[in-house]
């Protein structure tokens, strides 16, 4: 046996559970990449409008499909998560909220904010337009 003494061990990756901050950090990057795909979808939608009424009609019909709705829901969720967590990053950049308890607290706030804003948007969407 190697003498490990009281030294800290590096995380044992198969059994290591990421702390909340780690999960959110990973999610920030993942949602960022997902939103890049969403940006391409947005570009398609705008360009369809420039192409003419028929192309735009097609694009709008495509957006109404259940699978597109699923993607749009994912993008809404990703957008609000990336936005809320982005605010958290901006506070960190200003040197605010860097204590562990504060990081955990703001992490939960980000999750709550993300879910509330996403639900609110989709309720507004379906409430307004059915």
């Amino acid at each position, binding site marked *: 046996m190697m003498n490990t003494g009281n030294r800290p061990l590096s995380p044992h990756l198969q059994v290591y559970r990421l702390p909340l901050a780690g999960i959110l950090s990973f999610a920030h990057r993942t949602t960022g990449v997902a939103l890049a795909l969403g940006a391409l979808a*947005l570009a398609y939608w*705008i*360009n369809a*409008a*420039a192409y003419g*009424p028929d192309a735009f009609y097609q694009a709008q019909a495509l957006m109404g499909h259940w699978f597109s709705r699923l993607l749009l829901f994912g993008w809404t969720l990703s*957008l609000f998560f990336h936005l809320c967590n*982005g605010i958290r990053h901006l506070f960190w950049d200003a040197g605010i909220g860097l204590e562990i308890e504060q990081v955990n607290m703001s992490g939960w706030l980000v999750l709550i904010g993300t879910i509330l804003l996403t639900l609110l*948007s989709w309720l507004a969407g379906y409430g*307004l337009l059915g």
Partner: protein
Amino acid sequence: MSLRSDLGRVRGLGSAKEGTSHWWAQRLTAVALLPLSFWFVWSAINLVGVDHIGFKNWLNENANLVLMILFVGSLFYHMQLGLQVVIEDYVHAEIKKVTSLVLNLFVALFFGVSSIVALLKVAFGS
């Protein structure tokens, strides 16, 4: 003790020798995208199922065209900056890395510029 000024010390730092400009541009676009994103989500909800004329009329209402161009511009700029960091973190082979970075920049520019031109075309078109 160094006689160099603080500014002189940070200028040209980092692997790309561009100092803090990438970091700063990412924060600026992030701050710009905060209000613009809320505005865009609200607008998108109101544009569900709208037809071509409806979209054109919406673009010509109030400051919608300007805000839409600002949103698309900041979005694709922010996207390019973010994906650049992801590429720099995970792609290590020099040729692959440079190719991906250039491709990332060109794709972002292409979609950003084409979207802005498309918005102008719809708004000012007949």
